[in-house]
């Protein structure tokens, strides 16, 4: 065993991090290759690195940090995804999350990025289980997690509370000749979701503590934005989703409508409701401004 003076700060920190973040506990952490590469001690020798106290062994003392590491991050993930954790059951949610945290340990100074890869991790987990193609029950949990993460990102991300947005009056002032070529610039906080399950209603019921049942699979589409610092959800249909997605891509209104028409079953109804849809979206602050190009 090396003399304790041989342990420099770099080795001690890398060793301790490997030990306290090991998923199988501190003893397994001490024996892990990562820890052994830094300080080559076995659990029974660890007093050469960590002093015992009058009442507690070195291992017991390290276990305070080891137990706290995953407990703290699991607690945070449950707060990010309360509905998903509730729907999965906390034990199952924690199992997924433990694996996720090992694959994607935090590398940020803020916990705000802790779940950056969680939804894609769930998707990959579903694909590895052979769950591709038609909506599978696991898609419900993936959709719910995606909704919760999207809400979180909008809530504390950039917003437009201090901006003057495009009004319905400005919308009405765009002449019919210029309308197809106009570009409606979405607000920075607008997000669009295409989902395999109607998770928005489920989420609402969960927030109201109504203990909702898992819904039957059905395509659903959402537009989300933030107004007065509150995240707001709007259920839209597939043509509206396609239209808004084209606008977000930067397509002019005419081209965006053409994209949407491909998804329309009842063209007359779509045409009748198109104007009111734009009016509603403008009134709800979906658009920052309109850009009228020379062509328009």
């Amino acid at each position, binding site marked *: 065993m090396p003399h304790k003076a041989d342990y420099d700060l*770099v080795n001690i920190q890398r060793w301790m991090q490997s030990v306290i973040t090991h998923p199988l506990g501190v003893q397994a952490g001490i024996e892990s290759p990562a820890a052994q590469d830094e300080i080559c001690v076995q659990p029974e020798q660890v007093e050469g690195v960590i002093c015992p106290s009058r009442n507690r062994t070195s291992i017991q003392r390290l276990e305070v940090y080891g137990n706290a590491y995953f407990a703290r991050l699991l607690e945070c993930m449950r707060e990010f995804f309360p509905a998903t954790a509730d729907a999965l059951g906390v034990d199952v949610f924690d199992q997924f999350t433990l694996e996720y945290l090992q694959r994607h340990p935090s590398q940020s100074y803020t916990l705000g990025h802790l779940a950056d890869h969680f939804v894609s991790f769930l998707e990959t987990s579903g694909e590895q289980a052979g769950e591709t193609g038609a909506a599978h029950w696991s898609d419900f949990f993936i959709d719910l997690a995606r909704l919760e993460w999207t809400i979180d990102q909008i809530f504390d991300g950039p917003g437009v509370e201090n901006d003057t947005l495009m009004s319905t009056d400005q919308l009405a002032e765009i002449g019919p000749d210029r309308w197809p070529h106009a570009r409606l610039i979405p607000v920075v906080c607008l997000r669009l979701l295409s989902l395999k399950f109607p998770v928005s209603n489920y989420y609402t019921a969960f927030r109201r503590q109504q203990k909702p049942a898992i819904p039957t699979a059905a395509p659903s589409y959402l537009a989300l934005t933030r107004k007065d610092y509150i995240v707001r959800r709007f259920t839209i249909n597939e043509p509206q989703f396609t239209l808004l997605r084209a606008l977000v891509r930067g397509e002019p209104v005419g081209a965006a409508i053409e994209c949407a028409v491909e998804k329309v079953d009842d063209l007359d109804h779509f045409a009748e409701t198109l104007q009111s849809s734009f009016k509603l979206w403008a009134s709800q602050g979906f658009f920052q401004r309109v850009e009228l190009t020379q062509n328009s």
Partner: protein
Amino acid sequence: MRPKCSRADTVVNPLKKLMNIPGTGGARDIFHTGCPQDFCGQNAGMIARRLGHENLGLGVGLRTVHFSHILKNNPPVDWFEIISENFMDSRGRPRYVLDQIAERYQIVMHGVSLSIGSTDPLNREYLQKLKQLADEVNAFWVSDHLCWTGVATRNSHDLLPVPFNEDTLRHVVSRIRIVQDILERPLVLENPSSYVTFAASTMSEWEFITRMAAEADCGILLDVNNVYVSSVNHDFDPEHYIRSVPHERVVQFHLAGHTNMGNYCIDTHDGRVIDPVWKLYQLAHELTGGVSTLLEWDARIPPFEELHAEVLQARHHMGGQLDHLPPPVAAPDTPADGSAVPHPLHYVLPDVR
């Protein structure tokens, strides 16, 4: 050259002062306020008490569950401490609320991710954001912990202890100097609660902190509860610790509740301050002449009035007779709960419709 005093010595928002005069219980009257002439005696040289910082009185940690109450009721709190990382990237309601509260109250920033003791490079982007936030909310000072939070690009989001030896001291002091140059203000560092000590340590925590503060010319946030928790965990005399730190460099006190696990303690910030900690606070108050005092409460957070009432108890412990301090042993009747997790945790729940 790094500034010895913050602009708080000379520039205090008049509105903030007005907010703190009526109905506060007179925290400002109890304390003597800081001024450049307010120098400490023993071993202080020309160091001003509290590094020249003002004594802000009795404050509480700003937590999201109290946002609405504070905005609606303007409670007579002397000052608020914010968790820096909760706001430095916020572009939503948390930052919006903070800006309103900063207009009405004195603000101090307290971080959990500086990782001053880490052997990873300092995160310059983080430091620039920290400085920007401090400038924008007119923070009276910026504090963090004597700890490391991760290495090899990882963040454990825990406040991990360092071995106390000459190598660590050199390392930490050099990093504090860099941080202070970037922040353009003295850094204030807190003694964290800890649960291990290292065979590689060659000095006590209080000796390390004393030398660190002198060599780096930084301030100390003396967490009295952490001294108590660590004293139980590491078998030292907390009174000796309190007596040994350089009192003229103590800019702020922290108070908090902790969890007694039977034969050790965990710093959980989830309850009231226990009497032995109040006793230590009484001693620290006498030795320092009084500094800004803040109560942390981060789990099972009570209604704001209860939280505020708890920190106002500090008044009863100022200037009283020092009784014999009880020995730092865990009370045998306190149930040990294996689920206790040391803080910090910081996350803001979204508002959604």
